[in-house]
């Protein structure tokens, strides 16, 4: 019962999504009209850790928290790429994760999008040149948007996802 009295006490914790500067979210091309119509209200995301330090993952887990609440935009996370519309890729692609990343992309049904999160996914970040690193994400799968930051804030990640599907 203490649980429910606490729930009532806290009330609604969701905050409106703060704006993000356009330098943090880089859209690589114009949003496909079909993707905009299809994913505008319901988007399923499969998160792929292609060798990250988990800093970005910690921020991504913040997305489903009551404060950022990605679900209110119709965005939810799924367990299998077969159920997914968008792949959220983090980390520089390590040599061991290169093939799994490509296989995950192939397992996703069309139409699909890819949003790469964090500096590592675009420039390999601090791991650039390391012996285990195979390259940036766009060298393996076609990326629709990058979200810069090390790690980027949850708000920025969410803005990146929404931008990829053409929502403001």
């Amino acid at each position, binding site marked *: 019962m203490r649980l429910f009295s606490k729930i009532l006490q806290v009330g609604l914790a969701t905050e409106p999504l703060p704006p993000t500067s356009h330098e943090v979210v880089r859209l690589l091309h114009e949003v496909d009209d079909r993707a905009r119509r299809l994913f505008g209200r319901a988007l399923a995301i499969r998160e792929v850790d292609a060798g990250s330090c988990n800093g970005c993952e910690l921020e991504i887990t913040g997305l489903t928290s009551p404060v950022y609440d990605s*679900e209110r935009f119709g965005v939810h996370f799924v*367990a299998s790429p077969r159920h997914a519309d968008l792949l959220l890729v983090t980390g520089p692609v390590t040599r061991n994760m290169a093939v799994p990343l490509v296989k995950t992309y192939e397992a996703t049904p069309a139409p699909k999008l890819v949003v790469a999160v964090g500096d590592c996914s675009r420039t390999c970040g601090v791991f650039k040149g390391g012996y285990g690193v195979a390259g940036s994400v766009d060298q393996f799968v076609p990326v629709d948007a990058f979200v810069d930051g090390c790690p980027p804030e949850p708000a920025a990640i969410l803005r990146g996802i929404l931008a990829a599907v053409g929502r403001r």
Partner: protein
Amino acid sequence: MVAIIGFALGVSQAALALLLAPGLVGLVRWLKARLQNRRGAPVWQPYWELAKLFRKEVVVSSNASWVFRAAPFIVFASTVAVALLVPILLVPLPFDGVGDLLVVVYLLLLGTFFLSLAGLDPGSAFGGMGASRAMTVAALAEPTVALAIFALALSAGSTNLGQIVARTMSGPAAVSPGHLLAFLALFIVTLAETGRLPIDNPATHLELTMIHEAMVLEYSGRYLALIEWAASLKLLIFFSLLSNLFVPWGVAAGLTAGALTLAVASLLVKLVILAAVVAVLETRIAKLRLFRVPELLSVSFVLALLAVTSSFLLR
């Protein structure tokens, strides 16, 4: 002429159930979101999800056979067939003579059977695990369901759904302790069969904790849409059974417009109440370990056995 109207009403009852089902799931999710202090998706979110899934392409494993492709259709068709047989709005039902409560139970088992086969088909360990667990839970829930049916049929004198509802509606004397115990037993079975907490977490991402989800990990596009829709329809059917077999007041006994509007309204009220109960329950309790689930099911079995015994003694 009356038969045709009856037929049309029966079909439209099932169509209404089919239309409401995603909304019911959306309502449960919305309530859970609010209980988690967040805004959550709107109640009609599952409709957008289904619409999107129907427009995605299907990716099928190269190991899969025709069983994998046929299973979503069989699951959906059997669930809709159950929706045609169950008293959601009307009593007597136009399809009363086609199937009784036992037919309903076994039609649902038909769906689970084929879904489990489809889980085994692609040859992934996740699917096999989901299939094994789903069939275990289904098999262990069967005796409880059979005994609950027995308890209801004892007082009504028949396993016919229309007759059971009519008997309960005939007066407060028809409601006995056996009814309450059977209701509790069937509530636990509902949680088991529809894959809600504490038996299965519908929102989990960890394959080792999945039962229903694990079987559908390979499905995509329109197949996934059919399966998700059938699962939400199954939830609505179980809620309708729970409410209309035990608390049937509001169900239309005649074909007048007034009775039908009252029936729709009372159905909505009952669904909202049950959705709220499930949402609160899912917030409060944690998922049971798989090997503790039989203990919960045996609790429901004992409740059903007590229901039957009390029905016998109080006749």
